[in-house]
């Protein structure tokens, strides 16, 4: 049931009372004395159609131009409109807003975020208590450490350097990878986000990520002095974070 505001109900009630009072004082062509709005409306349309048939017969008899009769029912002070009913939005109009299952950010999301932040803080504090950041001896231009390694996230690139010309390994391949990554949403036109609909995209990305992950791991753990291939369990670890 639609909730009709109280003041509107009251106004409608008053208007109805006034209209019925006028109706009883001056008899109109409208025969209906029903107070229910839908009934009244029905009768009115009936009366209108009756009138039209009368006019039509008149027209066929003698071609007399008669102006259409004024509205039979005018409200108090000549109002031609009044509130008939309040219709709840969405019952007639097609409102495109579909109900979404939502939850309050507080507490449901903020608590999760707070706990996650706390966990990461705790982890980094504890880890930092037990593991020290490396600080090797003072920088020395005359003594190149063997091997010299880039930060771990660039070790994939350094690994590529052993296979390609530096311009290809250091600029072209990473540049192309970054460029394709940025363009991903414009290349992949498939609108679905269901894994079963995007087997190709997922395979391609997985291969791409694995490619870098494997290169980074080889560069980090399997490269020793002279950037030669080694086994970390046999020759030791040549890796600083």
């Amino acid at each position, binding site marked *: 049931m639609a909730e009709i505001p109280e003041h509107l109900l009251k106004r409608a009630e008053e208007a109805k009372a006034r209209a019925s009072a006028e109706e009883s004082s001056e008899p109109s062509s409208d025969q209906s004395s029903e107070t229910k709005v839908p009934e009244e409306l029905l009768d009115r349309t009936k009366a209108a159609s009756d009138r039209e048939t009368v006019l039509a017969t008149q027209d066929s008899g003698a071609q007399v131009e008669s102006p259409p009769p004024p509205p039979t029912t005018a409200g108090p002070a000549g109002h031609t409109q009044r509130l008939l009913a309040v219709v709840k939005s969405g019952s007639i109009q097609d409102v495109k807003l579909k109900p979404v299952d939502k939850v309050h950010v507080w507490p449901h*999301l903020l608590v999760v975020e707070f706990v996650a932040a706390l966990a990461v803080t705790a982890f980094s504090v504890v880890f930092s208590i037990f593991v020290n950041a490396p600080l090797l001896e003072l920088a020395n231009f005359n003594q190149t450490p063997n091997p010299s390694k880039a930060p771990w996230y660039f070790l994939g690139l350094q690994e590529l350097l052993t296979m390609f010309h530096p311009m290809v*390994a250091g600029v072209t391949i990473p540049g192309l990878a970054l460029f394709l990554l940025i363009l991903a949403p414009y290349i992949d036109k498939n609108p679905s986000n269901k894994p079963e609909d995007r087997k190709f995209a997922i395979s391609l990305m997985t291969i791409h990520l694995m490619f870098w992950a494997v290169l980074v791991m080889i560069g980090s753990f399997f490269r020793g002095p002279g950037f030669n291939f080694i086994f970390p369990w046999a020759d030791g670890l040549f890796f600083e974070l």
Partner: protein
Amino acid sequence: MAKQSLSEKLADISEKTKSSQAWNSIFRPGSIFRKGYSDSPRNRSYVVMNSLIYHLHPVKVKRHAVKVSYTLCLGGLSFFLFILLTVTGIFLMFFYRPTAAQAWDDIYTLQTSVTFGLLVRNMHRWAAHLMVLSVFLHMARVFYHGAYKAPREFNWVIGVILLTLTLLLSFTGYLLPWDQLALWAVTVGTNMMGYTPVFGDQVRFVLLGGVEIGTDTLLRWYVLHVLMLPFVAVIFMAIHFWRVRKDGGISGPL
């Protein structure tokens, strides 16, 4: 008149504080610090609406969006690690001078004679590596959920820019301790950038502030690390977070 009990006094003080102009000027009407908090849907909305949280979150989000198994908190944690790095980084700045003559000594002194110096430097280092990892994993997560698709294409672009900025932030910080690890890691990295076609030498010169790594490089990378890159990253983060909301909240469910 009977002597007031302690709890009555405390209640009186809190009443006076809460009706003071200062208190009411700090907390907006509807703030839980003004009118107290009791659990009701209206108050749950007010917690967000009448605080700074409203800049980050709407009042309500889709139910699946709060599931940890969907996001793994990776984006939020990347942002949190950025804050953690800012806080620890500011602490480190008090004890560090970016010149070839002083940088390494300053780090050494920080570790040996400053209270919590070693701990804070460790935290800065590990949080930095963690942030590179979490930003990378966040990107993978977003890709596997297809969350870069319309209408979120542009936010993906911003995200890739943020990933690049994260790597640059980490890399510029790598040089600052001015030890053997820093010097030679950066030598390897900048030699690679020197192979940029056409402008290679110029790119290298601008990055190093000279033809080879030296005290000018240190100053340059220090300014990039503590000021310019964070500044740019914050701007892109602001756009990134704003777009998450404007594009209809986080994606999904699958």
